[in-house]
């Protein structure tokens, strides 16, 4: 799951050089797109610089859709010096690949959210480690529920059951222990020392790099 945040205003202002076409992607707006802030900023850019078109579409990460949606704006895009895209990193890359000879810039930074693409942001996250540990941990993920992604138990940093990184976050291993305790399955924790295989997730995935 991806969320987009606007880059610093002065950083965006320096990007919008010459005739500028702005493309907003609202495809994941229900997840997060800083709609109002972006509109406000683009209004300012328009007032100051030479913004020739503001296009708002969705799912620009789909190259066919992108091409189709941009059709009627191609004259303006061809005449532009800069195309400024407000979307996640996938969207910006798709636009940059489609408009091969244009200076395509990103107006946003992209951050991860728990849950995969298309799924509502979830309270659970999956680190796609490729060697699911949930069988040892009562179904609570040590990779994502522990700040340090520890796989052999709690570090010494938790206080009152809270994580050292954030006092509002419950210690993942504390949760794991309590869950197994509740299920009367504490023996599960007597597993052989786990060593993560960072190559594994990529080894046999067809899309591996």
């Amino acid at each position: 799951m991806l969320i987009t945040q606007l880059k610093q205003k002065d950083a965006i202002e320096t990007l919008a050089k010459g005739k500028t076409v702005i493309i907003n992607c609202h495809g994941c707006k229900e997840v997060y797109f800083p709609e109002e802030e972006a509109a406000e900023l683009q209004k300012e850019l328009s007032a100051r610089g030479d913004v020739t078109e503001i296009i708002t579409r969705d799912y620009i990460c789909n190259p066919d859709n992108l091409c189709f949606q941009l059709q009627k704006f191609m004259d303006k895009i061809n005449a532009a010096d800069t195309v400024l895209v407000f979307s996640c990193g996938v969207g910006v890359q798709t636009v940059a690949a489609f408009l091969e000879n244009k200076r395509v810039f990103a107006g946003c930074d992209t951050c991860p959210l728990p849950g995969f693409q298309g799924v509502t942001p979830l309270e659970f996250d999956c680190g796609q480690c490729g060697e699911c540990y949930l069988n040892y941990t009562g179904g609570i993920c040590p990779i994502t529920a522990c700040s340090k992604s520890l796989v052999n138990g709690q570090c010494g940093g938790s206080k009152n059951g809270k994580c050292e990184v954030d006092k509002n976050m419950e210690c993942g291993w504390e949760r794991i222990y309590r869950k197994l305790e509740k299920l009367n399955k504490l023996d599960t924790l007597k597993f052989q020392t786990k060593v993560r295989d960072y190559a594994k997730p990529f080894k046999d995935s067809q899309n591996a790099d």
Partner: protein
Amino acid sequence: MKLTELFQRGEFVVTAEVGPPKGFHIDHLLHEADEYLKGRVHAVNVTDNQSSVMRLGSLATCKALKDRGLNPIFQMTCRDRNRIALQSDILSAALFGIENLLCLTGDHTTLGDNPQAKPVFDLDSVSLLHMVKKLESGEDLAGNPLEGDAPKFSKGAVVSPCSDSVDVQLAKMEAKVKAGAEYFQTQAVYEPEKFIKFMEKAKQFGVPVQLGIVIPKNAGMAKYMNANVAGISVPDSMIEELQKDKEKTKAGITGIEISARIIKECRPYCQGVHIMAMGWESKVPDILAQAGI
């Protein structure tokens, strides 16, 4: 000298801790170690970028202490190095004749003075112990053979006996023992009764445990630790004791008294003591004397 040998001999093993400076001049550190620790403690722990604050390296400091005739304990955390760097540093330690390791997970990067750093945590304390054991068997973690003799260490780990979730800590302690931990140093103890209770349960693992002592410098420090430091709780009565005679506390006398008292109370239940003086290294001799060690 390996700590394990001392435990085997039935010694009440005494260790202290030094923190390397943020810079490479360690004259002061060496001077203090010479003055207050040498001859009084069995070994000296050297912290590894403690609290995620970047400092002089633990390995180099260990080497310098060793050259001065002290017995260093090389503390290693998993925060800053992946398994390649960790194994490499363990071999380097063997080259320097360092015989004691203390394996920790390490504080998170965001808590230190370089919060932008990438937190590594390729391994954790348990898998680090496991990896040391593998190196000792003559192969690296991936199973590739080492050239020549395998290194041999005394492998230590830590545990928090007064943690608010002591059962979770015990589970982890068991995992560490299984992975190869041969001795434990504990987080600071201020509640002997909790420690004794803990030791009753920890006994089953058959591994020596050193009582952890952090000298309470003043009431403010005690309150801060209560609010912020994991596994530590200073009882109110002790805070009152620190507040009662401010001058005495300031001179370090209250802290020495409290520390010595805890050691005396807990001594029958454990196999050693580990003193984390945090700059008050000069008080270590008095504590040991008062505790009757």
